[in-house]
């Protein structure tokens, strides 16, 4: 079963310096029908004006991933930093029992465009941590690249998250068909980062998402970039 969440139906915020689309309820946007999917709690697409950003604020008990679509984000937190996150990089922050961080567009001239993802952790009061992983653009072309998961086959290419969830990215063109097996009891969320794709025959555009249950194989084709969440 595939349930599409159209991009234009998401919660929209325009604060001038920030334009944000929330797939699930977040901040002032609240819809009891969209409180998350499985352990995926937040999926925000943020466009931040040059030099602007979120001042220091706190988080607790959440696995927070940031995936850059365009531009750069400067990150500082109570553990480490500063760090600059760019394209073909993912950042994973375990908020654990408490963390304070800030994130700003690192450029004074170009906007930044990113996806922020919150995944519920397997337990409360974990030890906070920060990871930043870079990968080669070709790693995601025509195949799934594992950005984050509960274990890392290669710590230089995959971040570890404290949940039995896996986050993949792939970029397909008209010649590609990328498949992913979903064992029984597993679910998936697909989020289109750019372009237009088909997943098991369902057509999705940039900004669209899809909740997927009771399907054993996912086939992604089309021309675009997607994040695939394999969820318990």
């Amino acid at each position, binding site marked *: 079963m595939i349930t599409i969440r159209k991009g234009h139906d998401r919660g929209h915020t325009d604060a001038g310096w920030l334009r944000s689309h929330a797939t699930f309820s977040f901040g002032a946007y609240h819809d009891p029908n969209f409180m998350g999917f499985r352990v995926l709690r937040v999926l925000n697409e943020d466009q931040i004006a040059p*030099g602007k*950003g979120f*001042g*220091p*604020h*706190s*988080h*607790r008990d959440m696995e927070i991933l940031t995936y850059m679509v365009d531009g750069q984000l400067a990150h500082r937190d*109570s553990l480490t930093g500063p760090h600059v996150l760019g394209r073909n990089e993912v950042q994973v922050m375990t908020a654990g*029992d*408490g*963390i*304070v961080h*800030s994130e*700003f567009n690192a450029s004074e001239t170009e906007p930044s465009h990113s996806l922020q993802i919150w995944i519920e952790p397997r337990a409360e009061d974990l030890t906070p941590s920060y990871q930043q992983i870079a990968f080669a653009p070709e790693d995601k072309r025509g195949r799934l690249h594992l950005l984050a998961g509960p274990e890392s086959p290669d710590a230089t290419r995959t971040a570890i998250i404290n949940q039995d969830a896996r986050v993949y990215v792939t970029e397909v063109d008209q010649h590609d068909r990328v498949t992913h097996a979903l064992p029984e009891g597993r679910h998936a969320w697909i989020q289109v980062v750019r372009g237009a794709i088909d997943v098991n025959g369902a057509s999705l555009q940039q900004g669209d998402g899809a909740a997927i249950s009771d399907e054993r194989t996912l086939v992604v084709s089309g021309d675009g970039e997607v994040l695939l969440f394999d969820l318990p």
Partner: protein
Amino acid sequence: MAQPAVVVVFSSRCGITERIAHAAAVGVVNARALPRLRRLADDGSTVPPECAATLRRMHKEYVQPTERDIAGAPALIIVPTAGMTPLSAEWQSFITLLDSLASAGTLAGKVAAVIDVGNSQTVASFSSALTARGFALVAADGSDARAHGRTVGAAVMSTVEQPSR
């Protein structure tokens, strides 16, 4: 259940006191309360050249505390730069803000703490100023800013009404 807020007010020019304020804020989060970090405006004095970039960043990242911040939070944590007192230029307008709230009775029942940044006279002077304005002081429970922040967070969480069955 709404998370009670703890306003963490600090002065910092080179980022050292900022890090201590962050540690106190993490302690507040540890206790499941919500820290709101606020940096005081500069007093206009020059800073060492090596601090210029940090100062520019802090100007961008923080806002100053407002009456609404303090009035809306059950707790206040102060993180002054070592050697400062409530009469120091950076703190005077904030103390005036507290005076205004105290005269309106807005501070009654609120708790506060002064984080020790390594200068006992600084802690003593700010503690006296807060007590005089009606705050109940929360003493340090542990040797560092994070532990102190956690104690303040726990104090405000204990006042939150627990849902009954």
